[in-house]
């Protein structure tokens, strides 16, 4: 018999599932950025800047999941 608050399970699942997609996304983004960096090393600066910006957008989705998890865990 498992005891405990089911909300904790929900919070864990929210961040676990919510970080799957962004994790894949950031990996793919970085891989593509590295690829284009290898093809065109002079464009390192703009590629890096745009990569960080795009990663921020992708990461924001994981942050939404995190906020949901935090709300489940800490707001009653």
């Amino acid at each position, binding site marked *: 018999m498992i005891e405990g*608050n089911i909300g904790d399970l929900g919070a864990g699942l929210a961040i676990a599932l919510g970080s799957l997609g962004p994790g894949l996304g950031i990996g793919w983004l970085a891989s593509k950025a590295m690829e284009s960096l290898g093809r065109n090393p002079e464009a390192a600066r703009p590629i890096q800047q745009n990569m*960080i*910006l795009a990663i*921020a957008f992708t*990461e*924001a989705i994981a*942050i*939404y999941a*995190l*906020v949901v998890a*935090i*709300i489940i865990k*800490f*707001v*009653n």
Partner: protein
Amino acid sequence: MSKLFKSPKALVILTLALGAFVLSVAGGALGKEFNGGFLGAPIAHIQLPAEPVFADELFPGFKLTNTIVATWLTIVLVAVLAFLATRRMTEVPTGLQNMFEALIEFFSNLAASIAGPENGRRFLPLTLTIFIFIVTSNWLGILPGFGTIGRIETAEEVIHHAEDAGTDLAGVNLQVFDGDGAVGILSLGSIRTEEITAKRFKEAEEEGVHLVEDGKQVGILVPFLRSANTDVNTTLAIAIVAMFMVHFWAFRSLGIAGHVGKFLNFRGGPVALFVGLLEIIGEFARLISFTFRLFGNIFAGEVLLIAMAFLLPLIGIIPFLGLELFVGMIQAFIFSILTLVFAALASTGHDTEHH
């Protein structure tokens, strides 16, 4: 690897680092399970909304929260730094003036490359202000003293509040403090061998048993200072200012009809009208995304640091402090750069967008 073992200096450093790490793990919460835990790091109370510094309302309906105090501290610090940097300006900058000049030059180049030279000059002050404010408050939040020094809310008050809010008392962990003063410090060594939850404390009180010896008290630490961006109100306020200015600049450069026409487009048929309405939703999505990106990152960082201070106290936490410094700067950079990009996008009309 073989090179490493030939150099005695590297080997000594590696051994010392490994030893320090093992010491940190053994002294933390993991070691406590195996009769270690001699560093006795306590786990701080994690709370989502900002806590009031004083228990009473300052004036009706307003409680001074610790994030507001941290925001004021940030403002004062930035003002003092700016004053010191510009007090004795020289032709060849040194020290603080040099740092600020490098920062401004970097951002003005960036603004010019994203929004063009003329618009870039217009957008620079706000984006740079946002960057400096956010990075200062994020870095301030990592300083010792933030989240560890505060007033002690006694166990009776905690239980009273938890019962009012309908929280499960078994889930509220209480801490033990030396002395009976109103101000407490959450220091190393203040952990106890057994955990005291609010439920256990209440039951013990009802039976007339005192869980702690004389000269100590049970309660929760309410910190005086807490990183400003761990409060969703702070980040929402910055986001509202940023989005307001984005639309202000758009009205300035496109005119009222030009900017409103992007959202209420009656000339391009039903599809264009629908796209325009979606744009309105998009603007609100940007606002919410701004708010929660910064809040989520900094709050998660705070929780990470608390958990790591519990698991790997004193030494193992150092890499995570470095990570938080990096995250704090990157988030500030992203916030300001996105403001700049949104402003540049909004200030160019549909006609000039496709050339």
